[in-house]
């Protein structure tokens, strides 16, 4: 009898049921995940009801809906809805359009240079959204934007042609940021599509465009909708881009409004209102995730992914063969090259100024020298390294254990565990940050000094990223046939040996994939550590960059940004070369 067919609980009449020692860890995993997800959310809800100005002063006898009335009763909240809706819808439309085009071209056409797109597009994950937004201020601000100044000079324009401090500006920058993840999610969809349906359409006389519209896109619709919802939730949760580009123009979305309430001029944050607002946000995000789960569940009906081995038919682009390559190059220029160049430029300036002969004459290396002489930068780099290792490893380990329970056990709460593990994806980083802030302050009260340190940030990141980790692990574990484990058990191998000899080698690519994904997101993300860190000793690089920008050290941000982008690019490239060395064969 295989391990998973043994009941986890003995049943004998009315006797109490005790878990078998070997399945005790199922319960432990459940408790860990439930604590990580439900405890902060419970405090978030309590905080939204509490009239205490400080999180530690919650009194259960002083709960009311006053903050909800304030938030709901204010007409300007509905302006937030509008802004957020337009921003998210626009960003997703831009991001998905570019990603679909690129993914379709590399998978379904005979375009040249596919390997460069396979390698190049995911590399843009290395560009943190925060740096991207800062770079676009310097490029497209109506007052100092270098591109605007250049075009005004070139064509004698009276007004700047672009304004990044607008909803289209936000949509453009966030849309670019969404492309690499959407691209990575769409590739398997295109790759695993059964070509016989398209061929049947072609045989029936449909033109290629008609076949794409009536067959390809319709077949892909459930998968596409799933990617769309996933990306919409991602755009909802991002704070960095609207924080830098939206707030100066008074264009607030939910995440920036929560931030504003937490950074009050009157000293103490308006936690109650921030929490009440975050609850609305949470409902929207949970609704989107529910829709995502429904779409995923129904997608099986369309059976576009089968176990058959085949290669889809490639569309011949003819004289348009270079067009996709041009699109990819344009994307890489906007996503990486231009931000990198602008940071390179400002990193050499004594103060920020538009390009001119005088500016080039005044260039200095002092900011690069300062990078190596500032203790805080070294501390932040070390903290980031520690955080990356701890959070990424913890995410991989916890995701694996959770998926093992979900896929391979008969644990009573495995479905609930699956939902709990996926729930954090619905919770925006800034909301998660507030929720964990309340949790850790309560823990502080209880004598557990978690708040402010790297441990607290690592816990919050791990809780947030297991949603992605478990999706990957669930799929990977499902692909390992049970016969392999059973053979190991029959041969007398203990659990740990089965794990080590069967699961570990087969799941290694998934482990590495989740680890890298988490690493890149931990390095890029500022919204969560900004709320949870306390003191310079606990700064990570994203927080340091944010604070430096805030503090006016734009040139230093440029120097660090250049180095950070180059290191991350080298890292992602190395990983691709080492881990996916067979990429050229994909052509």
């Amino acid at each position, binding site marked *: 009898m295989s391990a998973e067919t043994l009941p986890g609980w003995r049943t004998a009449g009315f006797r109490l049921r005790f878990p078998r020692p070997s399945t005790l860890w199922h319960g432990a995993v459940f408790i860990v995940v439930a604590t990580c997800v439900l405890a902060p959310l419970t405090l978030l809800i309590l905080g939204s009801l509490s009239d205490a100005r400080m999180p530690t002063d919650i009194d259960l006898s002083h709960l009311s809906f006053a903050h909800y009335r304030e938030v709901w009763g204010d007409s300007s909240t509905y302006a937030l809805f509008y802004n957020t809706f337009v921003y998210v819808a626009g960003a997703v439309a831009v991001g998905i359009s570019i990603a679909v085009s690129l993914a379709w071209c590399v998978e379904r056409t005979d375009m040249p240079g596919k390997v460069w797109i396979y390698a190049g597009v995911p590399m843009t994950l290395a560009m943190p959204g925060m740096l991207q937004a800062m770079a676009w201020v310097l490029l497209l601000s109506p007052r100092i934007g270098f591109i605007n100044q250049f075009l005004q000079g070139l064509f004698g324009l009276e007004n700047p042609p672009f304004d990044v401090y607008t909803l289209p500006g936000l949509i453009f920058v966030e849309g670019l940021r969404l492309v690499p993840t959407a691209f990575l999610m769409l590739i398997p969809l295109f790759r695993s599509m059964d070509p016989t349906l398209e061929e049947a359409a072609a045989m029936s006389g449909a033109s290629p465009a008609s076949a794409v519209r009536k067959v390809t896109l319709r077949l892909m619709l459930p998968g596409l909708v799933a990617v769309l919802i996933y990306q919409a939730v991602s755009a909802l949760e991002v704070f960095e881009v609207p924080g830098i580009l939206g707030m100066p*123009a008074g*264009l607030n979305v939910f995440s920036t409004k929560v931030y*504003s309430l937490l950074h009050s001029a009157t*000293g103490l944050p308006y936690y109650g209102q921030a929490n009440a607002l975050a609850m609305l946000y949470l409902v929207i995000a949970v609704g989107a995730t529910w829709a995502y789960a429904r779409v995923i569940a129904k997608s099986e009906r369309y059976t576009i992914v089968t176990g058959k081995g085949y290669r889809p038919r490639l569309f011949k682009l003819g004289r348009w063969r270079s067009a996709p390559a041009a699109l990819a190059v344009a994307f890489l220029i906007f996503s990486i090259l231009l931000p990198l160049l602008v940071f390179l430029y400002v990193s050499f300036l004594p103060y*920020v100024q538009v390009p001119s002969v005088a500016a080039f004459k005044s260039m200095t290396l002092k900011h690069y020298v300062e990078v190596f002489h500032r203790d805080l930068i070294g501390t932040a780099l070390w903290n980031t390294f520690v955080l990356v290792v701890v959070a990424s490893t913890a995410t991989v380990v916890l995701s694996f254990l959770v998926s093992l329970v979900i896929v391979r056990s008969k644990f009573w709460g495995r479905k609930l565990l699956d939902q709990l593990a996926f729930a954090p994806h619905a919770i925006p980083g800034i909301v998660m940050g507030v929720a964990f802030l309340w949790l850790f302050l309560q823990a*502080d009260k209880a004598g557990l000094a978690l708040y402010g340190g790297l441990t607290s940030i690592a816990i919050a990141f791990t809780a947030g990223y297991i949603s992605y980790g478990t999706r990957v692990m669930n799929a990977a574990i499902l692909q390992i046939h049970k016969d392999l484990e059973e053979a190991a058990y029959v041969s007398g191998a203990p659990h740990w040996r089965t794990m080590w000899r069967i699961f570990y080698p087969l799941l290694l690519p998934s482990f590495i994939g989740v680890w890298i994904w988490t690493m890149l997101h931990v390095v890029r993300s500022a919204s969560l550590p900004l709320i949870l860190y306390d003191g310079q000793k606990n700064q990570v690089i994203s927080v340091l960059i944010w*604070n430096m920008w805030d503090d*006016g050290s734009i040139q230093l941000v440029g120097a660090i940004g250049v180095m950070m982008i180059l290191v991350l690019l080298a890292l992602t490239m190395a990983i691709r070369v080492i881990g996916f060395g067979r990429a050229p064969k994909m052509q």
Partner: protein
Amino acid sequence: MGHSMGYLKFAGWAVACAMLVAPAMSPAGARAENLTDETRAMLKALKFDESMMSGLDKELELPAGWLDAAKKEGTVSIYTTMEQKDWNKAEKVFRARYPGINVEHSEVKTTTQRTLRPLVAFKEGRPLVDVITGLSGNSFLFRDAGAFIDLNDLPNYRNNIPDELKVSDNITAIFRVRYWCIGYNTNKIKEADLPKTWDDLIANPKVWGNKHLGLGNRPNNWLVNLYTVNGEDWGRKYMDGLFKLNPQLRKEGLNGLLSLVAAGEMDAVIPAAMDRVAQIRQTGAPVGHYCPEPVPFAVSELGVMKNSPHINAAKLLTNWLMSKEGQVALFYANDATPAHKGLQGKEFVAFPEQIQGKKKAIAEDRDGAEEDALLKYWEALWLKGSGGPSPK
């Protein structure tokens, strides 16, 4: 009327100080003080005469047992808003004065972090930090919690800080002052367009309107002071007028805003600290500092935690920070204008012409209900300006 009286008292105090300080600053009034090598080096770097430190020995006389007890404790922790590299300069002078006492400095950027966690720890009876600076109007929280000691037994608080800058219960002390006015891009704003009074600014939307002006979310640095002088009605009307100019409401910190002014992203910013403008100007950036009348004069407060396990070392450090040596060290570290009665010369002010002969505005009711009401009014306008619900 009480507010105007406060201003008059301050003006009188400043004149009296200048008269008292002048003889002490002259070579004839100088006498050799027990200066450390670090202090000498600091004065040399600042091109200050050693006579500036006259009376230091007396200032550094401590009540019996303090120094030994402090040395026994060995460490003192402090939260400030200063960058570590700046703080290190001041700390070096302190260490030379009091060897054997280690200072654990933390640059704590946000008000929440400087306030919330120490208060939570205090309420739970756990010591977290000994000295907190940059209280930004949150001292009432520490007062309510009874978290700060009475500083009246610190000789330099009693003797060196002007009475007008003290709070009645002496739980916080002013250790530095700043002039917060307008930072502007000299290529974008003509001198003729600079407003004589604050009211002139909101009356000229052509120059200051339509995103030409940037605002930082720190009304307590300047507007509260002006309100103290001009009254509540004026304060509210002024805020209405200011927000009608359609300024850029930026999330960046005040120093970040100055860099954006230098870059030309906005023509001017309020509030801008005089010393910070001077620092950016030194890089060659086209920035200037201008103060309409009255000049907002803001203070930085510090407090010593009651449950500090290093209470003697904390008192020693705080007392030193309010001595001439400590005050000059802070100026040396990051151009902090001293609060010390005896250090009110123009060498401590980056743009003396901007304050000389002008009325100054101090916020008297730094912690009170009036300021709270004003800040809430600001908060509502700020959040409305960015399309969200306003706190009630």
